[in-house]
């Protein structure tokens, strides 16, 4: 292969490593976020908020690299699909980082001595673990171009959705105490943000299928739930 094209191939690999490396940043941010939730650690929450700049920075960096590559190398076929997918993946990564920030922002609202309801906290911590596992799995699926592993994210996401619904039920029935109700509402915001991180991981899985097959289809269509969208 000509030298110029070899550089291009190397550059493309590096671009993918950079973009997918954003998912490691999300995992690190998520770990801190969940620790902050568990211990109502406001200092750690502030660190998560400040550190989101790293994820945003990665987004901008990859975005710029993609623009340069489109302008200078005119990628086509699989390369073009990969680059288009990486743009989507970076957007999902940036949103996942933002959800960690959203969670971290509401932790101070619960206060140091919040009236903790264990049943709800347990479920939220479980959702956090599940999000962590899905984020790592989406990275593995992308790296290996493994559609089955990508589709498995839908099954994993169902667990998160169910936990979210359970949290909602608990919050509705949490009782009359004003402080506890306020705490439960805040925790619902946390659950909601985690549920969105799960959706973002599924979105990354859909991009894996696009890179491999050239077809973009939502694994699950929210407007027509229950209907299979992939052949």
């Amino acid at each position, binding site marked *: *292969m*000509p030298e110029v*094209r070899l550089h*291009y*191939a190397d550059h493309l690999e590096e671009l993918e490593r950079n973009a997918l490396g954003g998912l490691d940043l999300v995992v690190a941010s998520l770990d801190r976020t969940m620790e902050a939730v568990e211990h109502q650690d406001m200092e750690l929450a502030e660190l998560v908020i400040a550190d*989101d700049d790293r994820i*945003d920075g990665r*987004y901008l960096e990859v975005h710029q690299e993609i623009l340069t590559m489109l302008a200078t190398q*005119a*990628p*086509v*076929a*699989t*390369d*073009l*699909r990969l680059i288009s997918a990486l743009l989507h993946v970076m957007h999902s990564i*940036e*949103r996942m980082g*933002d*959800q960690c*920030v*959203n969670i971290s*922002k509401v932790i101070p609202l619960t206060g140091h001595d919040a009236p903790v309801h264990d049943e709800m906290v347990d479920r939220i911590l479980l959702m956090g673990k599940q999000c962590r596992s899905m984020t790592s799995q989406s990275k593995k699926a992308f790296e290996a171009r493994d559609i089955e592993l990508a589709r498995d994210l839908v099954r994993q996401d169902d667990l998160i959705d169910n936990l979210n619904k359970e949290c909602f039920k608990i919050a509705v029935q949490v009782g009359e105490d004003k402080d506890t109700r306020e705490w439960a509402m805040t925790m619902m915001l946390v659950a909601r*943000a985690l549920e*969105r991180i799960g*959706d973002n991981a599924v979105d990354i899985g859909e991009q894996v299928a696009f890179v491999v*097959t*050239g*077809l*973009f*289809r*939502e694994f699950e*269509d*929210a*407007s*027509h739930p229950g209907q299979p*969208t992939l052949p």
Partner: protein
Amino acid sequence: MTETADKTKSDRHAPVATDLAKTAEQGVKRGPDKVERVAKRFQAKDVNLYYGDFHAVQDVTMTIEANQVTALIGSSGCGKTTVLRSLNRMHELTPGARVEGEVVLDDQNIYAPNVDPVEVRRLVGMVFQAPNPFPTMSIYENVAAGLTLNRRGISKTEKSDIVEKSLRGAHLWEEVKDRLDRPGSGLSGGQQQRLCIARAIAVEPEVLLMDEPCSALDPVATLAVEDLIEDLKSRYTIVIVTHNMQQAARASDVTAFFNLEASGKPGRLVEMDATDKIFTTPSKRETEDYVSGRFG
């Protein structure tokens, strides 16, 4: 970049299935926005092309749809220009060259014994790589040259009308209308190429074959010719050979990729499909490697 509210999954109205392949498939059937004249379609059936003993192109079967631009791409020596030249019986002008198989224009095999090759070349015009206006002729005479040969006894008025119509058709009229008596060779490269296109369309062909029509032109002139190609497909069937893959991607509806198995082996058609599909999801690895620049 933090947003407090995120769009919910159910808020999204993303298309349920944006199926690139399906779009590409529609691309095959996609003609120009308006068809001013239904041109003729070509079918090559089991075409084998030879230069003496050398088997240049093997077993090409393809359909070239009317009112579309079909691009032939592939590395040098893969036979794409030879295939192009076989479509108006120019291949056989090379000493020792021969053709096997059928090339059918509408329902007529252009290689049938009763077919006059001169008539074939009137129906199927050719524009060459380097602009080649007749150097001693004026702009007017260049355009009228084919008319003078093909339509003896044509009136002066009719001839002038056709010259103007052809120059307008080739997007050249406004630039040359005040100097029709000046030599064609005095025009710029891009203008000369458009003059050659005007000359080709003056005889009202069905098909225009273009052999790397922009390779000698600068980017501005290239875009002018590509605009013209886009415009011409509402009246003609167009086949273009190009080494410029971005040009194939920009200017054509269908792309056919030719390749050689190895040096000295005959060229063959590897894949032919909607241009969108060839440049996003080609079916064959060989095509993918070529369009992505992974060759050599």
